[in-house]
């Protein structure tokens, strides 16, 4: 029986500083067979081990068709991610995964897709945006709403510009605090939702970001008539095992690591907004 806790080594190929606190590591498994066998879907995550320091859950942000590498975009928030910010090409980490349930791609196929994200460039959502952009003919209109606290926090700005020039793709940016050169809206990203012409019945919404932002977005979407089973979002909790065993990530009866991290609103409606879950 394979040891589900044992990481495999991966080598860092490339490191990109995205913002003062956010960086992306492109890596591949040391073992070619492991790299070839590595198959994931957008929204899934790996457990990444930094030698002697710790192991954390990080979503995979590249397109699954990139078979020779995988990317992790990491924000420095704690001890382990801070240690990882010091990694350079040629350094090694341990990888377990991929884990969890990703975005509902089959459900979204043929539909208009609304993507709502807040915070510092939400990595789990970027993975699915890339997936949609690379398969543009399979999906309807795409609308990306990206909110940040301060306009200088936005990463992947050039990428958003490129996406916004695609056919039937709309990118709307909002920042609470703006600088003079900001071309987006000032205010909350959730305020933008009301201005959309959602084609209810053929639209699906994918959300990622702080829970309060997502709850506000969900309330807006529901009031516009979007069905609960067409609202999907990615959750974050303390994750240690990745396979629904260590018990930390539970929200009610759901394991975020195994049943999620992407959930349909109808699955978690009873617990969203209840403190302590």
């Amino acid at each position, binding site marked *: *029986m*394979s*040891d*589900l*806790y*044992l*990481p*495999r*080594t991966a080598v860092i190929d490339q490191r990109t500083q995205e913002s003062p606190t956010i960086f992306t590591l492109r890596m591949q498994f040391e073992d070619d067979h492991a790299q070839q066998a590595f198959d994931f879907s957008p929204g899934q995550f790996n457990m990444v*081990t930094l*030698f*002697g*320091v*710790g*192991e954390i859950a990080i979503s995979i942000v590249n397109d699954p068709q990139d078979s020779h590498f995988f990317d992790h975009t990491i924000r420095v*928030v*704690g001890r382990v991610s801070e240690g990882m910010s010091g990694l350079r090409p040629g350094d*090694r*980490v*341990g990888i377990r995964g991929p884990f969890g349930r990703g975005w509902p791609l089959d459900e979204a196929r043929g539909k208009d897709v609304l993507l709502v994200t807040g915070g510092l460039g939400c990595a789990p959502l970027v993975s699915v945006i890339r997936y949609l952009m690379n398969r543009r003919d399979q999906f309807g209109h795409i609308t990306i709403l990206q909110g940040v606290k301060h306009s200088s926090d936005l990463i992947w700005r050039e990428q958003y510009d490129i996406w916004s020039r695609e056919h039937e793709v709309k990118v709307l940016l909002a920042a609470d605090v703006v600088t003079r050169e900001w071309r987006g809206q000032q205010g909350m990203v959730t305020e933008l939702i009301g201005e959309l012409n959602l084609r209810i019945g053929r639209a699906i919404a994918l959300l990622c970001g702080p829970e309060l932002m997502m709850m506000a977005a969900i309330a807006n979407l529901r009031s516009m008539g979007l069905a609960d089973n067409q609202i999907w979002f990615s959750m*974050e*909790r*303390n994750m*240690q*095992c990745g*396979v*629904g*065993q*260590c*018990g*930390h990530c*539970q929200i*009610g*009866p759901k394991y975020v690591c*195994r049943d999620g991290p992407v959930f349909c609103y109808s699955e978690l409606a*009873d617990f969203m907004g*209840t*403190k*302590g*879950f």
Partner: protein
Amino acid sequence: MARDGAIQFAEMTSVEQLSPGLTNEQQPGRYRLRQGDGDRLFDWNHGPQGVKPHCFSPREVLWSEQGEPLRFQPRLPAQAPIALVGVRACDLAALSIQDKHFLHADAPDPHYRQRREQLLLIGVDCAHSAETCFCVSTGDGPALDGGYDIGISELDEGFLLWPGSDKGQTITDRLALQPADDRQLESMLRISTQAAEEQQRSLPQPAELRRLYRRLEHSHWQDVADRCLACGNCTAVCPTCFCYDTGHEMSLDGENAQMVRQWDSCFSAGHSYMAGLLVRANVLQRYRQWLTHKLAGWQEQQGRTGCTGCGRCISWCPVGIDLTQEAAAILREGSVDV
């Protein structure tokens, strides 16, 4: 056997180490061994631990790593075969729940499996119930109902013994056993019926317990939180609680490290730590997490509650919190479902 004032599974070399006549008194926040009448060997119920630590180790190394170049080495436990003698029905039910959790088809835990496969389980029917027992209401006791290799019922005149598995059968085949007569079989039934009738506590039925999730704002949660010390004794003695924490331990020279896992508790602050904040910052939220998961969430996860009625969380709670009473109060009192 008795050790440090409690019944424990410990290495035994002779049958004399099973104290004849020993019994236990268990009440909310109280556990005492006492010499009872007679010389029966299994008149006690249980000590603080069931089978759990023998499969799911309280602390173990999952793997080790070296830094230069980075390499990971598996560290599976080298477990010698052990026989646990005197396992109760509630603990066998709990073991079956833990088996489902750790040997779940999608992600079987090789460490748990290694230990689990080395166990020989000698079960025994309970002849008495402690004041804290409520296994009748959960459907898990007091008589054995599967999950053991050899079953035992202790009569005044000796033991009735039967195989519960192929492994058990190979052992009983080699013993010089007399067939039990009708009178002995009647005694066996009478003993466990009597033990069942002694039970004073009961847990509401599963369908009712699922309603706990609809009472998350009930005022009684604060009432329990005001008494609960969040010490984690209940989760440590619970035979089904499975939460664990993993962490790296570095060698002093910095060249090697190992991944260690140890039992965690949803009452600890770090249990809900996420990116610099605590999802469950106070005692109310932690007790509510424990009780709702144990009694309601588990039903969706495993098809039954995570409670087998052993009552340990009641006996070993330093302030005597009784989950049967708390659950009933939250389901009964005041507010309507939301």
